[in-house]
C-alpha cells in the first residue's frame, strides 16, 4: 500500500527509534504535523526555531542519541542556522528536518522559500534536498547514519511540501550503503605500538583529551590508561566530564582560562598524548610555543583534525575508545619496556602536584557575592550529580573551573562556536532526555536574554529546568577584555535595562528567586532545586569580577594572568 510522504516520514523516524522531536510548525510542515500528532513520538513545541535545534542538541549531548528537530520553510529554516553551526563545531549528532516550498516553486522566490541546503552547506556534516519522494526513506536512513557515525555532526534534510502529501511505496532500507563514506574506527596497530614506545621513553607525558572521548564513550578507558601509566590528564572545555574532575591525576582544563597546573604541564611536557581533541586556538594559546619540548601523538577519528594546527609526530586515525583499548592492552602486556618510565614518573607527578598546590583555582572572598562561590555551592549541594549547561562567556568559564564534572555528558556547553543563548534550550533538551535528573543552566544576564522565550516551552511541557543567572549587569567576558585591553572603556557591554527576572518568571508561570548575599545562596538554591518547577534564580553577583587565570589571546600558555 502506498503512503504519503508525511506518513513515510513518521514511520521512518520510528524505525530509527526516535522518541522525541523538537519542533515548530508552519505552512510547509502541516502535512507532517498532522500525522505526527497521532504518533507516540514526543513533540516538544518550542518558541523559536533556534531553540528547537539547541534543545535537540542538549538532548543529544546528554543522552548520546541523535537529536531531532523539525521546522518550516523560509524563516523557520534560517532560524536554525546558529543551532546547526553550534552542533557542527562541537561534533554533535543531529538531524534537522526543514520543510520546503513545493518542488515546482523551488527557485522562484516563493513565499517562505529559502535555499537552506545552500545556506547551511558549510556548517552541516551533510545535507539533502528530497527531490523525489521515493528517496525519502533512504535519505532519512542515511541522514541518521551519517549524523551519528565517524565524527558525528548535524545533517539537514529539506523536504518540499508536495513530497509530504504525494503517495509513494514505503520500504525502510535495512542497510546503509554509501560507497564514498567509510569512517575509520580501528586505529593502525603499528602506529599505536610506536605511540606506546614513545610513551615508554617519555619522562613528562600529559594526556590532553577533548570531546572525542565523550563522543566515543571512552571515559572508562581513558581513566584506565591514565592510571595504568600514572599520566596526568588535562581536558579541553569539550572534554570536561570525560575524566573525573576529582581524580588525583586530573590537572584541570588547559588554555586561555585553564589552570596553572594544566598549562604548565603542557609547557614542560616532553610528550603530549592528544585524544579526541583538535588543538583549538583557545586551548593552545600561541601555536608556535605550544608544548615546545614535546613530541605529539594525536588520536582522532577525523583525519582533517590531525596536523591542522599543530604538527604531529605520531598520527593515529581511529575511534578514541578503540585506540585506547589497544593502548591499555599494550601497557598491560608490558615486557619491561616501561621500567625506566615507571622509575621516573613519580618525579613528574611531584612537579605537577606542586603547581597545583602553588597556584590552585581561586578567587578573593571579600564579603561581596562572588560568582565562583555560587558555582562551588551548586557543586556541593548537588554533590556533582546534576546535568549542567552553560551559556557563553564568564558564566561558562567559571563553571568549567569551579564545578567538578565527574561523569561524561554532564557538562553541556557550546565550545567551538561559543553560542550565547545555547544553555537554556540545551537544558530543556537534556531535561526531556532525563526527566528525573536535576538540570541546571548556569547563565549570565546577557546570554539568558538570547533565548529567554523558551521559558514558555519549559512551563508548557513541565520541564523543571533551573536557570542560575549570574547577574553582573554586564556582558562580563567582553567587559573583562575592555578592562584589560581597552583602557576600561566599557562600550556596549553594560546592559542598562535588564528585566526583573522574578517578575518575568512569574509572567510565564515559572518560579523566580533573587539572591543578593552569600548567606542566602544555600537556602535559596536548596528550595529552588526541589520545587519541581522551571525556575529562574537571579543571583546579583559582584559586577567587577573577572575570570582568572587568563592567557591573553595570542600569548603562549605559560604567560598567565593570575588572580
Amino acid at each position, binding site marked *: 500500500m502506498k503512503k504519503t510522504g508525511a506518513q513515510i516520514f513518521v514511520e521512518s523516524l520510528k524505525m*530509527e527509534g526516535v522518541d522525541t522531536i523538537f519542533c515548530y510548525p508552519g505552512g510547509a510542515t502541516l502535512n507532517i504535523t498532522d500525522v505526527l500528532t497521532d504518533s507516540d513520538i514526543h513533540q516538544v513545541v518550542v518558541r523559536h526555531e533556534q531553540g528547537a535545534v539547541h534543545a535537540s542538541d542538549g538532548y543529544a549531548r546528554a543522552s*548520546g*542519541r*541523535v537529536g531531532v528537530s523539525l521546522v518550516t520553510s523560509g524563516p523557520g529554516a534560517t532560524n536554525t542556522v546558529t543551532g546547526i553551526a553550534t552542533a557542527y563545531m562541537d561534533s554533535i*549528532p543531529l538531524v534537522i528536518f526543514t520543510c520546503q516550498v513545493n518542488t515546482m516553486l523551488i527557485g522562484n522566490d516563493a513565499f517562505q522559500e529559502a535555499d537552506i*541546503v*545552500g545556506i547551511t*552547506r*558549510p556548517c552541516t*556534516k*551533510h545535507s539533502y*534536498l528530497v*527531490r523525489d519522494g521515493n528517496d525519502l526513506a533512504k535519505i532519512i*536512513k542515511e541522514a*541518521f*547514519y*551519517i*549524523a*551519528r*557515525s*565517524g565524527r*558525528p555532526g548535524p545533517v539537514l534534510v529539506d523536504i518540499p511540501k508536495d513530497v509530504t502529501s504525494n503517495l509513494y511505496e514505503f520500504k525502510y*532500507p*535495512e*542497510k*546503509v*550503503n*554509501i*560507497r*564514498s*563514506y*567509510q569512517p575509520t574506527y580501528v586505529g593502525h596497530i603499528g602506529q599505536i605500538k610506536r605511540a606506546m614506545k614513545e610513551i615508554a621513553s617519555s619522562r613528562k607525558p600529559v594526556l590532553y583529551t577533548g570531546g572525542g572521548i565523550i*563522543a*566515543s*564513550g571512552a571515559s572508562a578507558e581513558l581513566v584506565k590508561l591514565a592510571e595504568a601509566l600514572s599520566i596526568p590528564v588535562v581536558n579541553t572545555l569539550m572534554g570536561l566530564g570525560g575524566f573525573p574532575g576529582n581524580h588525583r591525576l586530573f590537572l584541570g582544563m588547559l588554555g586561555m582560562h585553564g589552570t596553572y597546573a594544566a598549562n604548565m604541564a603542557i609547557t614542560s611536557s616532553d610528550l603530549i598524548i592528544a585524544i579526541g581533541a583538535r588543538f583549538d586556538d583557545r586551548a593552545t594559546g600561541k601555536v608556535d610555543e605550544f608544548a615546545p619540548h614535546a613530541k605529539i601523538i594525536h588520536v582522532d577519528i*577525523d*583525519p*582533517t583534525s590531525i*596536523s*591542522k594546527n599543530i*604538527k604531529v609526530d605520531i598520527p593515529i586515525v581511529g*575511534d578514541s575508545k578503540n585506540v585506547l583499548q589497544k593502548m591499555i592492552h599494550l601497557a598491560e602486556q608490558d615486557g619491561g619496556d616501561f621500567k625506566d618510565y615507571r622509575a621516573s614518573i613519580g618525579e613528574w607527578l611531584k612537579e605537577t602536584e606542586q603547581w597545583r598546590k602553588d597556584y590552585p583555582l581561586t578567587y578573593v572572598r571579600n564579603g561581596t557575592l562572588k560568582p565562583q562561590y555560587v558555582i562551588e555551592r551548586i557543586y556541593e549541594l548537588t554533590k556533582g550529580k546534576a546535568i549542567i549547561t552553560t551559556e557563553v562567556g564568564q558564566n561558562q568559564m567559571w563553571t568549567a573551573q569551579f564545578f567538578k564534572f565527574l561523569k561524561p555528558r554532564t557538562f553541556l556547553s557550546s565550545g567551538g562556536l561559543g553560542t550565547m543563548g545555547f544553555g537554556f534550550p540545551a537544558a530543556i533538551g537534556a531535561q526531556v532526555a532525563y526527566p528525573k535528573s536535576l538540570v541546571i543552566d548556569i547563565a549570565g544576564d546577557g546570554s539568558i536574554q538570547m533565548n529567554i522565550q523558551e521559558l514558555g516551552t519549559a512551563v508548557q511541557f513541565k520541564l523543571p529546568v533551573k536557570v542560575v543567572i549570574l547577574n553582573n549587569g554586564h556582558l562580563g567576558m567582553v567587559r573583562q577584555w575592555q578592562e584589560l585591553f581597552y583602557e576600561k572603556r566599557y562600550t556596549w557591554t553594560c546592559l542598562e535595562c535588564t528585566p526583573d527576572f522574578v517578575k518575568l518568571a512569574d509572567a510565564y508561570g515559572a518560579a523566580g528567586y533573587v539572591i543578593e548575599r552569600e548567606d542566602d545562596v544555600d537556602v535559596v538554591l536548596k528550595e529552588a532545586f526541589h520545587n519541581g518547577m522551571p525556575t529562574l534564580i537571579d543571583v546579583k553577583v559582584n559586577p567587577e569580577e573577572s575570570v582568572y587565570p587568563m592567557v591573553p589571546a595570542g600569548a603562549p600558555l605559560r604567560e598567565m594572568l593570575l588572580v
Partner: protein
Amino acid sequence: MRHIISVLVENEFGVLSRVAGLFSGRGFNIESLCVAESQDPTVSTMTIVTSGNDAIIEQVLKQLNKLINVIKVVDFKDLDYVSREMILVKVKAEERTREEILRMVEIFRGKIIDVSAKTYTLLITGDEEKLKAFLTLIKPLGIKELVRTGPIAIARGDKVIKVKEKHSEGGGEGNG
C-alpha cells in the same frame, strides 16, 4: 607548489557546490576546475589545479576526502601522469598575418575551427608548456579572446584511478 588533483565524486545534484564551497570557505585556492561524467555514469571526475605548501595541500586532500559525496581523491604529484588542456583562442587575422597564423597552428598541431573576415578561431591542445609557448608566439598578433578548459590528467601506463566498492554497515552501530 602547484598540484593537479583528481576527485572522483558521486554524479549528483549539488556536489560541485560542496567542493567549490570547501575551497572558498577554507581559503584554499582553485586555479582551474574541470568536471564531467566518467566512464561510469554515476561517477564524475573533477580535475582541480590548486597550489599551496605541503601542509595546505595535505588539508585540501583530507578535507576533500571528508566530503560525503567524494569517493576518491588523488594527488598526481605522487604519480607518473599525462595532462592536457584545450584552449580556444580568437585572434586578429589581417592580411599580413593570416599566413603566419596558419603556419603556427600547423606547427602546434592545432586547428582553425572558425573563420571570419577579421578573425580566426583556433583550437590547440597540449600540456602547460606547449600552450604557454603557443600563446607567447601568438600574442603579438593580437589575441581578442582566450578560453581554456584547465588541465585534465590521467595516470600513465596500466595504472587506473577507479572507485573501490566498499559497503558501510547499516543502522544500529556507530556511537549513537
